[in-house]
């Protein structure tokens, strides 16, 4: 829970005037000093720099304290501390009168505020956990369905699973695809509700080529009737014979990037390129889709953010790339974006060649 938001709500008792997050919050008991209002106005000079656990006297003779409350830098100002007697400065005698604050009182207040925020957070998590509990069985069942679907397709131990899926009867292929998509969607949901789960477990070596092959096979949608969308063909180019060490969550990254490219593809083609250089494997997902402005390269990875042109092209919730970034961070790599404007595209629907890429070092 944000400290400043709670302050605004009035839920935290504020005995003294406080400056936090570039705003002044007047005390419920002790109001802002006339000296502070006159000399500093809305920007107390004492809050221009911050030192944790500090008690000091400002250039105008008023005391202030600085303390961290739930990761927010807080300055309590316009008060008198024990080292600042009101008999010392005659002209401040009235201004300092009745404004004595002990550092211990400030620390106690900060602790109480932190405890309140922690209690709110815990209660929020408890409720979230309670509300999400029905998901438990659905996730378990989806994995069970996937296991059964793979068992149905995997009838010959001498052949690779991907090859057997490609050769399986259409109904089995559809079942494997649907079950795979269902499991991947639940995995996305898991990271969304609990980002920490991206680094659960231990890193294991996986075949990146095998994973991409399976994903391309699942997400290729040559039959428009299947998902009621335009057919999109996904091409996988390049090879990587070495394995890479990643968390289980890793698959979310190619899944999010490829499904994003499929969703916005303007020409029905998505290219997934795999380049194995000395010690580094690079994956690039390339497609023609709505232009991503350079200033959007970073924000598109934030929660609920949607690109200006992407918003016009299709509906969406703006979480796919946000989740991909969480997983990339957990696995220790960065997703890069490049969008090259395509000449001749309509002005109200600017198109570009969009490239999302990431590199994994083979450790």
């Amino acid at each position: 829970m944000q400290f400043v938001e709670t302050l605004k709500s009035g839920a935290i008792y504020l005995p003294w005037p406080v400056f936090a997050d570039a705003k002044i919050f007047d005390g419920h008991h002790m109001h802002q000093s006339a000296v502070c209002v006159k000399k500093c106005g809305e920007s107390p000079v004492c809050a221009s720099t911050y030192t944790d656990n500090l008690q000091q006297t400002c250039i105008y003779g008023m005391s202030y304290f600085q303390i961290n409350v739930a990761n927010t830098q807080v300055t309590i100002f316009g008060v008198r501390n024990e080292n600042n007697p009101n008999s010392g400065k005659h002209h401040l005698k009235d201004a300092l009168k009745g404004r004595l604050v002990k550092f211990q009182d400030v620390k106690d207040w900060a602790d109480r505020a932190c405890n309140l925020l922690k209690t709110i957070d815990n209660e929020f998590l408890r409720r979230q956990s309670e509300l999400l509990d029905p998901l438990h069985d659905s996730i378990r069942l989806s994995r069970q369905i996937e296991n059964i679907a793979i068992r149905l397709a995997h009838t010959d131990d001498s052949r690779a699973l991907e090859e057997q899926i490609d050769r399986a009867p259409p109904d089995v292929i559809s079942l494997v695809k649907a079950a795979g998509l269902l499991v991947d969607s639940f995995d996305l949901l898991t990271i969304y509700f609990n980002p920490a789960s991206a680094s659960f477990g231990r890193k294991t070596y996986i075949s990146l080529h095998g994973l991409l092959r399976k994903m391309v096979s699942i997400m290729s949608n040559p039959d428009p009737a299947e998902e009621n969308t335009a057919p999109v063909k996904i091409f996988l180019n390049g090879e990587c014979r070495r394995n890479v060490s990643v968390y289980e969550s890793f698959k979310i990254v190619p899944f999010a990037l490829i499904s994003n490219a499929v969703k916005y593809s303007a020409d029905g083609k998505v290219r997934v390129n795999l380049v194995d250089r000395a010690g580094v494997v690079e994956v690039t997902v390339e497609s023609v889709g709505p232009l991503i402005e350079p200033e959007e390269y970073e924000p598109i990875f934030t929660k609920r953010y949607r690109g200006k042109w992407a918003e016009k092209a299709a509906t969406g919730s703006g979480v796919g790339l946000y989740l991909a970034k969480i997983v990339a961070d957990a696995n220790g790599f960065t997703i890069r974006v490049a969008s090259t404007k395509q000449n001749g595209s309509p002005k109200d629907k600017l198109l570009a060649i969009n490239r999302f890429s990431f590199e994994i070092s083979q450790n």
Partner: protein
Amino acid sequence: MIDQVATFFNELGWLANLIGVGTPIIGAGFLIYRNRTTLLGVSSFVDLTTKLIVPKWQDADSVRKIIAVAIVDDNPADFPVVDLQRAGYQIKTYKQVSLKDIARLAEYDVVFLDIHGIIKDDIDEGGLKLLPKLREANPRQKICAVSSKTFDPTATAFFKQADDVQKKPVNAQKCKDVIDTLALEKLNPTLLSSCLDDETKEYGVYARRLLLKQVKDFAVSTTPVSELSEKISAVGKLDLALGNTLTDYIRILRHAVC
């Protein structure tokens, strides 16, 4: 007699004396050095491992014969127990346990632990409470957290404390991979012997040699490992860490020599 020997040597030149006296001494020294292990016993756990375990140790195959695995889950059907037993793993399943069972559970090498529904008095978060207690009782034990509740932020501490995390249901191949990986980390003879040499380096040469002899004798005997602390006396009372490491080592040694 002494006079005759003295006269004999006096009549020889200095080089002949040197060869005559030095050769048998050097020869005897060489023989003692070559057979020091037989005469004095091995001097370190690394030596003992090289001599007795390494020639017979075949990682996954060997470890599979000695590890004990526990599945603590209210729904054991999520695990391929029959497949694992057929593959030679010793598997025991527990639908529900109580905190009194910690000592017994801590003896397993690998534990698959669910968070929900496994402790009668704490249905919701029993696994979360059990995990640190198992860690305390046997820090060498490998714990794999198994649950589909990775989406639940209140369960993060449970998953973070585990050595591995798997979602249910776990298929047979995945389960075997997890068990083999965790068991090989716990029961790695080379690492265990280095660790034991390190842990016992503060003891004198005599105490260490005696410890090695007692360990070897214990391994070839049929005494259950639960009686280890009573039989091994060379370094005084065994602390928890050394006791746990020695128990694992003796199980490997017993497998190799018996």
